[in-house]
C-alpha cells in the first residue's frame, strides 16, 4: 500500500491539498431530487461553505462529495430540490 506522507507539524502544501478530502466527516448526505429547480437558484453555490455545489455554464453539474461535510444548509435553503439522507 502506498503510504501518504504527513508533513512536518501536519502542515499542508497547496499542491497536495486535494489529497486531503474532508467529506468523510459527513453524517448526512445531500441528495438532489430536482435538478430543474436547482438551476433556478444559482446562489445556492454561494451558500455552500465548502463550495461543493458545482455549476457549469449556469447549469447545475454535481455536488462534490469529496468535500461536502453534510451541513445541510443547501437542503434547508431549497427543500424542493435537495434532501438530506443519513449516511
Amino acid at each position, binding site marked *: 500500500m502506498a503510504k501518504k506522507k504527513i508533513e512536518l*507539524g501536519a502542515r499542508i*502544501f497547496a499542491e497536495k491539498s486535494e489529497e486531503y478530502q474532508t467529506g468523510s466527516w459527513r453524517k448526512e448526505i445531500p441528495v438532489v431530487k430536482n435538478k430543474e429547480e436547482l438551476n433556478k437558484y444559482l446562489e445556492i453555490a454561494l451558500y455552500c461553505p465548502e463550495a461543493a455545489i458545482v455549476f457549469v455554464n449556469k447549469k447545475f453539474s454535481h455536488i462534490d462529495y469529496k468535500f461536502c461535510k453534510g451541513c445541510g444548509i443547501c437542503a434547508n435553503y431549497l427543500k424542493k430540490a435537495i434532501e438530506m439522507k443519513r449516511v
Partner: protein
Amino acid sequence: MRTLINGNYAVSYAMMQINPDVCASYPITPQTQIIETFSKYVSDGKVTTENILAESEHSAMSACIGASAAGARVFTATASQGLAYMIEVLYIAAGLRLPMIMVVGNRGIGAPLLLHCDYSDSFLARDSGWIQIYCKDVQEVYDTTLMAVKITEKTKIPVMVMMDGFYTTHGEQVIDTLTSAQAKSFVGEKPSWANMLDSRITFGNVALTDSNLEVRERQFKDLRESNKSILGVQKEFNKKFGRKYGLYDAFGVKDADMVFVAMGSTYQVIELACKELRKKRKKVGCLRPRVYRPFPFEKLGRELKGKKIVVMDRAISHGAEFGPMGLEFQNMSSEFYNVVYGIGGREFGLEEARDLISKFLTGKQKKFQFYGLRADLEN
C-alpha cells in the same frame, strides 16, 4: 573577550550579536532586564530586529509563532506566571514545528506570590514538546543561547534555555564572550524553511482521530532524536571555542558510592562540596542533567547503575510519590532518595550543600524529604 556580566545581559548581548529578525516579548521578573536591554539595542540602532512589545505573554508567543511561520529568526524570553500564561501557545509552537528560542529566568509560580527561583514554571512546559536546556552559570547561558539558535533551526523544534532566577539572571560573573563576527559565523545564515510568505502552505491544520496519533508519534520521535543534533551543535561549539558541553555534567561518578543529582546553579555548590569530600577520600560524586528534554535516560541509566543516588528537586509534583526529577530517576539505580529543596528561592549555598551531603553520609535518611525547613515556623 573577558566581560563582567549577569545572565540577563549575557542573553541580550548574545542576541544583539546575531541580530535576529523578530523579538516579541513581555517583561516579567526576573528576566525583565533581557527585554529592557534588548529594546535599548533596538532603539540605539545596534540591531535591525522587529521588536514587538506585546500586551501579554500569550500575545508575545503568538507573535513569535506568526513570525517563525513566516520564516523569521525569532527570540523571546519569559518566566513564572508569564510562562504559565503562554502555555497554550507553547504547545502550538512545538506542534507546528516552528524554530524559535525562548530564554526563561526560572521563578516559582504563585500563589503565594513569589519572585525567586524554583523550576515550577519551566517544568510546567516539560511535556509541551520543546527542547529544554538548564544552565548552571552565566557562561553557559551565553553559550547555550547562541547554540540554541542553531539547534532549533536544525531540528525545527523550539528551544527553551533556562537559568536560575536571580542566582544566574542577576548574578554577575566574568565570562568569555565571542566577538560579533564569531557569533554570527557560528550561528550562520538563517536557513530557509517552508514558510507562509514563500510557499502556498497551510499551518495549524486539523488532525482528528484518523491522523492525530501519527502526527504526535512523529513529534515524539523527532524530539527524542534531537539529542543527535544537540550533540552535533555542541561538538562544533566546543571545538571552536574550547568548551565542554554535553547532555549532562558529571563529577567523580565513575567510582562513587553516592551520587548527588542537581540542576542549574545548585550543581556548582554540590560540586564544590563533593570536591572537598573527595580530598577526605569520601567516594561521593555529582551529576547535572543539562538537557532535560530530550531526557538522556539511557546514558544516565548507565552512569548511575548500582549506585546510591540522591536526586535534588527544585519543584514539587503535588500528590506524587516524588518530585518531578525524582520521578524521572527513581528506577535508575539500586538505592534512590529524593530531596525537595530551594523552593521559592530558599537559600541553598555551600553550607547547605555540605550539610545535606554529610547527612546522607552519616545517617539513615527518608526516601523522600523536604530539606531546609525552618524550625521556628509552625505549619
